[in-house]
């Protein structure tokens, strides 16, 4: 078993892969809510991914990858037996878990999987766990059966209404609070920042129900060294990699995070994906420039 080897790869819904990797050190220490930084190969950037599950005895960890940009596309091309160049973790502070009472967990996109260890942990602490998972349509919903084992209620929601309720996590939450008048003690959400910001706005208005969000940011080192993942939190600058990634959602400056911090490299990211073929890569800007220099 080589270092960072893929032991199992599974595409359970289109473009979503679950990878089991051999990293005994991380498997031993991982806690719910923590993440890893992954480099596919020597040329790759480092990207953060939430740890989905871990098995201390087997020495493996699992995470979910949504094929989206360059690095995740490279991962989609990897096979069982291939190895990652670098995996660092477990990073970040573990999620804040205790016996809150009734807890609602919301997971969307990659967060559908990422919420799993948190649900497991909260259930073990004696909470009444309600899990809401959201996808665009029924073909993209996953982990329903797994959630049934760690939740008291599982609510499915799809944008087009093809399965479960129609709408988004915050619509379901709104309904629970306004119509069903259910008492909710604690909410945790993981998914895209836009979804989380809307949940945050809703729960702030509805009597400030404690809401924690695991933010998605751009990272480089994951140890507090670069400040790439900084966000404004309660008027102060915080680093998602060491202070988070879970924060009190009501104190986050969501506008800045969504529209300023996380869109920094849109152009480069698009270009990177376009270049994701050997022919294009050989046309890299730098190589051209070096040639010119040498010629002159």
């Amino acid at each position, binding site marked *: 078993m080589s270092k960072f080897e893929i032991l199992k790869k599974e595409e359970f819904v289109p473009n979503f892969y679950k990878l089991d990797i051999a990293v005994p050190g991380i498997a031993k220490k991982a806690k719910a809510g923590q993440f890893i930084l992954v480099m596919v190969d020597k*040329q*790759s950037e480092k990207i953060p991914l939430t740890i989905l599950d871990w098995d201390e005895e087997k020495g493996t960890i699992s995470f979910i990858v949504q094929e989206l940009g360059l690095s995740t596309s490279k991962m989609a091309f990897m096979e069982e037996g291939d190895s990652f160049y670098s995996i660092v973790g477990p990073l970040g502070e573990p999620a804040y878990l205790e016996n809150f009472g009734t807890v609602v967990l919301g997971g969307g996109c990659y967060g559908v999987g990422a919420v799993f260890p948190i649900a497991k942990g909260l259930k073990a602490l004696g909470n009444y766990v309600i899990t809401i998972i959201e996808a665009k349509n029924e073909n993209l919903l996953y982990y329903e059966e797994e959630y049934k084992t760690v939740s008291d209620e599982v609510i499915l929601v799809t944008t087009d209404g093809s399965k479960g309720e129609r709408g988004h996590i915050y619509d379901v939450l709104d309904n629970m609070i306004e119509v069903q008048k259910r008492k909710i003690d604690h909410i945790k959400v993981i998914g895209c920042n836009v979804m989380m910001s809307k949940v945050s706005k809703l729960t702030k208005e509805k009597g400030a129900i404690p809401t924690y969000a695991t933010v998605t940011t751009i990272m480089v080192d994951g140890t507090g060294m670069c400040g790439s993942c900084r966000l404004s939190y309660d008027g102060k600058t915080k680093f998602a990699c060491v202070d988070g990634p879970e924060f009190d959602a009501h104190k986050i400056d969501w506008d*800045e995070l969504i529209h300023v911090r996380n869109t920094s490299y849109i152009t480069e990211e698009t270009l990177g994906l376009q270049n994701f073929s050997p022919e294009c890569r050989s046309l890299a*800007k*730098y*190589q051209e420039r070096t040639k010119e*220099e040498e010629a002159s």
Partner: protein
Amino acid sequence: MKSKERMQIPFTDMPTQPPQVRAKNFREVPYGYSEEMAIQEANRCLNCKKPKCVEGCPVRVPIPEFISLVQEGKFLEAAWKIKERNVLPAVCGRVCPQETQCEAQCIRGKKGRSVGIGNLERFVADYERLSGHIPEPIRVSKNGKKVAIVGSGPSGLTTAGDLILQGYEVTVYEAFHLGGGVLVYGIPEFRLPKSVVQFEIQNLENAGVKFVYDSVIGRIRGIDELFTEDGYDAVYVGVGAGLPVFMNIPGENLQGVYSANEYLTRSNLMKAYLYPEYNTPLLTGKNVVVVGGGNVAMDSARTALRLDADNVYIVYRRSREQMPARLEEVHHAEEEGIQFRLLSNPVEIMGDEKGRIESIRCQRYELGEPDKSGRARPVPIEGDYFVLNSDLIIIAIGNKANPLITMTTPDLEVNKWGNIVTDELGRTSKPFVYAGGDIVTGAATVISAMGAGRRAAMAIHEDLFPTTEVKTEGFTIPKETLEIKHAAIYPKTVYLRLNLINSSEKELDQVKIRISHVHDFFETTMFETTIPRWSPGEEHEFDCPRIDKNEKEYLITINDLHGKIMSKIIVAEEVKR
């Protein structure tokens, strides 16, 4: 050659890439000396009887000795001479601030240029590397103790290098996928080629040091677990000061504002300057503002220039003389066309509706009364502002201590800035945990971190093989005192470290040290050496192999140049602890 002739030789400048050319590439700026240039520069050294330069060096490189070897054309021997004290000569020759250390003390600097010690160090280290004549690493028999080193930066590498030679099993843990710490993520290729760092790490690996990458201590392992689960006998923490300081001014989180750490890490470690061949993106700018006046600011500015900027400004609060950057870096930056806006400080960053920066507003400063440090304090001028249009801003105003280790190790004492508190040899409040480098001192230099690494290695050795009881006899002589810093009997060697405390400031000539063992009134000499010049405050280490493990007592005799016995020390094996 007579001193008079040596005085006639002018300073040999190191040839460099022309500024216009190098400002557009990432290749190293200076080409280095040729053999002839090196000998010519070495001949300027007067080989002082009392070499001041050595005192200016935090790791006490035997400077006159190695320069003498260069004079004779013995370049390999010169490199090995340096390596007796410094495991990273190729690095130090490039990045040490020699002008404030060894070269500042050089007697020739009083009238004209001091000897180019850094240039010569670089030359011999490169000569050795390129010659392929690398001596086989000295295989030392293991002493049975294991040491973990956290962080593979300059201090960690030095500690590792020293300990491996003393028979320790040494493992270095590194958070990144490559070793070298600030040498690979911080210092750019054009100032320190990464192949040089890689070579030094390879040498340590050859000598037996193990490197474990992708491991963040504090997360994957706590300090306590290194002892309890992995069975280490000591842990050295050399994690650096990596927690960027921001200015806390409006607009700092806008797109296009980087900490220097992020900018340089993306460019150097992740090789964003080779984007898209390497995938990590890096925003580039046509008008780049770098805030700060240290080496990191210079590195950021010069990187930006090489990534196609038209204008690069350095905005610094104080005056040019007060800039902490290495003189050569400021000089190189200036040659390349970096524009300095001194006595200025940013107050606000302005952006467009998409959150991209557009400009930065700065306030002008003037020099006022001297502050506590004696430097004239910069005082803002009321109402005097100017605006620089900018599409990239890099903040290089320093780093705070990274709390990752100290947070997860509550019994490690830290000061109010979060730096680990240690004694002079790097011992922390936690037994068998040592620390050094920027995590202790705050942001400083590569060489001072290496000095700290060396001192910690001494402390580790002293603590893991604790002091034996020492009885002394006739030890003090008038005005000059040799103080025993450490005396010990190890399973295989007898070790002694002496310091000269000298109230008359006089140096001692021809001090003879003899270690012998006494059995039934017969004295057998095991080791004898002569120190030609011993300056006040200078420490010397001695160690000699034991012949018979059953011997419990050793006699150390120190004679002065007339053969007069200065002192006799009996070291007896009786562990105190």
